């Protein structure tokens, strides 16, 4: 395929256009129930963004990290404090700065990755998860000395206009996610991403070829934490509409890890697929429980079954398709196009034979 614009092929641009039309025009016109925006689309975009952050560090750079929710909490509470204490920054400015604050934490807790890898690194990153949550919990300043434990998030105001309806918040999330996703795709395709992947595939070989391990790993952790921080801020302000450290506990970190792995390591679209699956599957299971069995099955049992299925899928994917759902999708597309092509060839042959 020939590149058309900035080394993007025609197919890439068409994909982008289709996605934009779908999300900007089709979804707002056809989906009118608030439930879809507040409970599915907004958290999907936020969690997909956090999963991209996890992808950067885990899928692209190959560093086993398990602290995404900690960075999300850092981003969310940074946002709260920035809007509260530095109102001149505005929403977008605060969002960027809170991402940067999360990135600072990412650099700090990413440093052990220079020494260790695998499960060792996982333990080191767990420290970030527990430390950040504890810090927010214990120092009243972060919560503006609110004693109730749950703080209401401020309304989103951009350039003097309030964005408080579900649809408006959806557009805010969509805009941020689109910009950051395009950025991530560009990074992944460019020299930055090549360095990440070189480190992932064989760090010693990468180093001997002149890729600086220090720079690459720290950069990956910083960018990952930035994405998680922004995602956390959006998650708190658009979805939860409140801030509490408990919302960002280790369970959320595991959830994002699952989204990343089931979606497909080392892919950006995998982040969206994985997030959609992990988010929608429980909804589906609950609907089945309510409509097919009419509530005969206890809700706790349904959530336990959901856990069993997620775990089981994880094992199955590790055995049969370690590259996750994105790869599965790719395979299906390839098979379809092959079939399509072969049928085209048959048509051509039959028409030729008719002519002769």
């Amino acid at each position: 395929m020939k590149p058309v614009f900035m080394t993007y092929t025609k197919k890439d641009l068409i994909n982008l256009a289709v996605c934009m039309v779908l999300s900007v025009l089709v979804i707002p016109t056809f989906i009118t129930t608030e439930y879809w925006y507040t409970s599915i689309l907004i958290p999907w975009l936020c969690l997909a963004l956090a999963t991209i952050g996890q992808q950067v560090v885990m899928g692209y750079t190959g560093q086993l990290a398990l602290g995404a929710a900690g960075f999300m909490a850092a981003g969310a509470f940074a946002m709260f404090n920035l809007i509260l204490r530095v109102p001149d920054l505005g929403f977008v400015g605060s969002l960027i700065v809170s991402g940067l604050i999360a990135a600072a934490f990412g650099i700090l807790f990413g440093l052990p990755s220079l020494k260790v890898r695998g499960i060792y690194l996982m333990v080191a990153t767990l420290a970030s998860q527990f430390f950040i949550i504890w810090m927010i919990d214990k120092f009243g300043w972060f919560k503006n000395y609110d004693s109730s434990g749950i703080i209401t998030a401020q309304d989103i105001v951009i350039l003097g206009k309030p964005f408080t309806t579900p649809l408006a918040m959806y557009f805010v999330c969509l805009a941020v996610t689109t910009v950051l996703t395009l950025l991530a795709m560009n990074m992944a395709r460019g020299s930055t991403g090549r360095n990440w992947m070189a480190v992932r595939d064989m760090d010693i070989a990468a180093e001997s070829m002149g890729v600086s391990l220090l720079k690459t790993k720290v950069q990956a952790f910083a960018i990952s934490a930035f994405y998680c921080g922004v995602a956390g801020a959006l998650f708190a302000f658009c979805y939860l509409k409140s801030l509490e450290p408990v919302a960002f506990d280790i369970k959320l970190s595991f959830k994002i890890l699952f989204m990343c792995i089931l979606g497909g390591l080392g892919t950006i679209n995998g982040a969206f697929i994985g997030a959609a699956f992990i988010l929608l599957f429980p909804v589906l299971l609950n609907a089945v429980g309510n409509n097919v069995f009419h509530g005969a099955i206890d809700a706790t049992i349904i959530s336990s079954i959901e856990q069993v299925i997620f775990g089981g899928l994880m094992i199955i994917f590790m055995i049969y398709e370690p590259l996750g759902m994105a790869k599965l999708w790719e395979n299906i597309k390839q098979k379809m196009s092959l079939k399509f092509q072969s049928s085209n060839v048959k048509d051509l042959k039959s028409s030729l034979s008719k002519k002769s």
Partner: protein
Amino acid sequence: MVDELLFFMEVVVGGLLAGTMYSLVALGFVLIFKASATFNFSQGAMVFFSVLAFCGFMQDFNIPFVLAFILAALLMVVVGLCTERLVLRPLMNASEDTVLMATIGLGYVLEGLAQAAWGVEVRRLDLGIGDFPVPWIADNLKLFISALDIFAGLVAALMIIGLFLLFKYTKIGLGLRAVADDAGAASSIGIPLKHIMLLVWSAAGVVALVAGCMWGARAGVQFALVDLALKALPVLIIGGFSSIPGAIVGGLIIGATEKVLEVYIGPFFGGAIEGWAPYVLAIFFLLYRPEGLFGEKIIRRV
């Protein structure tokens, strides 16, 4: 001055004994890592699963204590068998990270199954040993040390001695060590790999059950046990992943340090630093001695 010293002693001894509880969990990790170089992330879930099953047998079916324990142990053997068949064998040639992620999935399966079968509410587990200071020690040495802690320490010591003897002096132990050293070479001289794996996973399951009983008696049998078991990870990093004595010493270090830090430094930061102090301690260990105190040096071939 004497009182302060006594208090310090009490904190340290209490921490050390609580640390043996971490050691018990860490022991399960080490067993599997030693034999198969697999990091079993589901060990925490196994602790939860086994003790919940134990409680379920006792409280829902009114099975007597000893029989319920044996049934739960048998259940863990079945879990080990299924794991070996369904998870480990297909992943025989996969990379370490892949197997690690599969065991995270396994942990989810076990947690879900346990909750689906036995419910989500907190269960009380009574071992017949109270979690209160032993009067004799309190009177004579002026130290307040919980009977449960002492019991856990004794159980841990017994298990270590048992495992040590098993590894050192039995034919099975020799086979285990051979497989740990080089699985391919071991199977080529006729050591049945499958049996060894099954044995190791069953042993880890029983260790998980014992650890679960100790934790359950203290904190109640509940989902939080899984998170508690995560603390076995810093223990392993400090002690080394492949060393049984390391698991014990690591547990003792973590237990004592976390208590001392909590009591003497915690108040300056509003307390509850127990939650992350072990992990930060582990990071410092990683920076200076990545293989842990007793672990073998990690050598990576290019």
